[in-house]
């Protein structure tokens, strides 16, 4: 059964491998997935360890429900100290890797040390082997996966790999599985590269016994019906995540020309419907695909329709690619978006960071802070599609002064570029913001400022804030499983009640990440999707463990606090622009210029924003400096961390 999946400690320096069961009391405290990963990271890393050194533990996991009879339990989570931010590194991806790892007998891997030569780990039905990767090193993400299958002579092997960018220690190199499933953020691919670890390959045929199979099957049907009937998921299943970009751009919530505008005008060629047309032309009417066990099927298949890479197959593009290779650099060609998406998939880089950081460099270029001499003659202007794609390649292989600087991440690069380049960098904690513009949405701004892994929408974004849901509906959602007596506002431009919404979402997302379920199956984009009240049932039927919604809420709070403790240990301070919970000054100073009439002319009110952070800290049980109060740690049972239970 799911609870007998094990944890393995693998030391690449010595070759030692130790396998342990995961005790039930640890499960009851941290469940699994991201929550338990955070606990392991805090316990297995030393303060101030070098993110690219052998002592940084790389932790790979599936959630407690991975591969069980619940919907979309496909998520793999990877955690380590981030080479990009120097704080918490964490990424989460779909695909088929985590289920395969669970069938092979494992839920968590803690990988330490550094292999002497390029290596990969092979896990097969409880056995773990460290193998030579000389035939795989240097290969792109997909080539590497197929080469591993050929070498092991097993086409069912699922691998998690880093691409050339990871090998080259690009600070935002990602880990990937399949064609496009990417654990994109915080540079976990570089951590793999620094360990000489090219891949983790899994193959398993071990039963995961379901505690109550008949009920699990029936409840799963109800759960899936609930998920697939949501309007937003029907749209997702047709257009994929680009539908989000389309809607957001329509009202003016898309960062354009780095941060100069909040809408990409006349972007008809990169609208979701246009991309869908290309997918249909190149892959036929049924061109959507899904991750393991998921009926939302939001992943589009396409072939590049034109240009030098015409005919190349890939999946996506996600809305992040529309932002990265469309809106942010102000390139409005579908081909550029599709090619850019393909390049980052093959090289193994975070598309979001790549697009964002190149757009920043474009703004610096137009301002004269970097010159054509620095770029070796490349005309790095906004809207220059060729320069954009060239830069993607240069960054991956660290070619030239500018690209090499950018490959170390924005903050490092700003020190090299000097002048006031840092002022233009749209980041929090050293990680670039996604392509969204939060100046009209204080709740979302609070989310990116306080997200544990740096500027990020998947940590605590109250995305349904944009739907103008009636207050009683908001109360129904946000007043469960613990009561909330404060005010909530349907108005997304408001500041009131948002800290609670962000706090609630933070716990909700931690919940799904511990379970190993996708965020499209919870209160993220759809108000009618399952959350705390529904999870105890899936958990009980599949694992036999009984929880109340309140207990799951507390677990989520505890896991989030562990992440906070890690960040505090590594130097997070509240107002620090590089390592704190603070936004770039442009959010407060530059009004939005485009979009719907009620969106133009908006900035974040700094005073109100600071008060929101105060209130958010209050909900989390932190003091004004952002440090946990003693009573909070006591309540969550975290007074003795690191407690080394595992």
């Amino acid at each position: 059964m799911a609870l007998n999946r094990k944890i393995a400690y693998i030391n690449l320096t010595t070759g030692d491998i130790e396998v342990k069961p995961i005790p039930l009391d640890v499960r009851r405290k941290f469940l699994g997935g991201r929550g338990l990963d955070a606990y392991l990271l805090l316990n297995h890393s030393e303060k101030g360890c070098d993110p690219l050194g052998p002592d940084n533990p790389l932790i790979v996991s599936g959630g407690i429900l991975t591969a069980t009879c619940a919907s979309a339990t496909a998520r793999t989570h990877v955690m380590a100290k981030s080479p990009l931010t120097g704080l918490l590194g964490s990424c989460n991806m779909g695909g088929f890797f985590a289920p395969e790892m669970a069938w092979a007998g494992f839920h968590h891997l803690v990988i330490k040390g550094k292999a002497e030569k390029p290596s990969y780990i092979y896990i097969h039905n409880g056995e773990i082997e460290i193998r030579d990767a000389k035939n795989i090193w240097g290969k792109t993400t997909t080539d590497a996966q197929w080469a591993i299958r050929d070498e092991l002579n097993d086409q069912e092997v699922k691998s998690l790999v880093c691409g050339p960018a990871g090998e080259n220690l690009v600070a935002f190199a990602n880990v990937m599985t399949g064609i496009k499933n990417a654990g994109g953020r915080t540079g976990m691919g570089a951590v793999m590269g620094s360990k000489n670890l090219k891949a983790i390959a899994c193959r398993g045929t071990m039963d995961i016994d379901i505690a109550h199979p008949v009920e699990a099957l029936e409840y799963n049907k109800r759960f899936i019906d609930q998920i697939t009937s949501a309007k937003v998921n029907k749209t997702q299943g047709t257009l994929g995540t680009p539908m989000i970009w389309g809607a957001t751009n329509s009202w003016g919530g898309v960062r354009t020309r780095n941060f100069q505008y909040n809408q990409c005008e006349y972007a008809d060629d990169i609208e979701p419907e246009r991309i869908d047309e290309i997918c249909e032309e190149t892959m036929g009417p049924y061109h959507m695909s899904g991750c393991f066990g998921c009926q939302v099927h939001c992943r589009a298949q396409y072939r590049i329709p034109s240009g030098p890479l015409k005919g190349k197959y890939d999946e996506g593009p996600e809305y992040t690619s529309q932002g990265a290779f469309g809106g942010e650099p102000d390139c409005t060609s579908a081909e550029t978006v599709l090619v850019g998406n393909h390049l980052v998939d093959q090289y193994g880089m975070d598309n979001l960071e790549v697009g964002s950081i190149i757009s920043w460099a474009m703004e610096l270029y137009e301002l004269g802070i970097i010159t054509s001499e620095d770029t070796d003659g490349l005309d790095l202007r906004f809207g220059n599609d060729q320069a954009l794609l060239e830069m993607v390649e240069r960054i991956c292989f660290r070619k030239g002064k500018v690209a090499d600087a950018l490959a170390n991440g924005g903050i490092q690069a700003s020190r090299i570029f000097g002048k006031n380049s840092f002022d233009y960098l749209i980041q929090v904690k050293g990680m670039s913001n996604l392509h969204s513009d939060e100046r009209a949405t204080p709740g979302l701004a609070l989310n990116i400022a306080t997200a544990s892994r740096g500027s990020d929408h998947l940590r605590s974004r109250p995305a349904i804030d944009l739907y103008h849901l009636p207050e009683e509906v908001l109360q129904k959602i946000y007043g469960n499983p613990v009561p909330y007596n404060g005010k909530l506002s349907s108005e997304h431009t408001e500041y009131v009640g948002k800290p609670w919404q962000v706090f609630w979402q933070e716990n909700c997302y931690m919940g799904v990440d511990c379970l190993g379920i996708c965020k499209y199956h919870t209160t993220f984009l759809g108000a009618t999707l399952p959350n705390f009240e529904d999870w105890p049932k899936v958990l009980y039927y599949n694992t036999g463990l009984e929880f109340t919604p309140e207990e799951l809420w507390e677990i989520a709070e505890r896991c989030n606090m562990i992440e906070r403790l890690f960040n505090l240990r590594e130097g997070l301070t509240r107002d620090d622009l590089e390592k704190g919970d603070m936004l770039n000054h442009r959010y407060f100073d530059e009004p939005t210029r485009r979009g719907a009439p009620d969106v133009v002319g908006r900035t974040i009110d700094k005073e109100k924003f600071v008060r929101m952070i105060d209130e958010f800290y209050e909900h989390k049980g932190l003091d004004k400096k952002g440090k946990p109060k003693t009573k909070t740690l006591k309540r969550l049972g975290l007074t003795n961390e690191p407690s080394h239970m595992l």
Partner: protein
Amino acid sequence: MAVDTNKMSGAESLRKTRTYGKFRCHNPTCMGRLEPKPGDDHVRCPVCTSEFRVAWIRKDFPRIRGPVWEVNKKLAEKAFKKKMEGK
């Protein structure tokens, strides 16, 4: 057993409010209900006069494809000017 199978969760009960065939205006504080006629590729918000292009996910399921650029751009410029004067 701690699990009550038959009780509807908050999320499940909210499902009943779903409507097809309509969407809301993308002008955030307007949020007027727009109901394009089947097959229409344009719709104009009767409340705030913003205009949108329409795409159809299914026959009964329309969504906003994007703004009618010329119209909404002018509205935005006007609103921006007014707001900056007020400051």
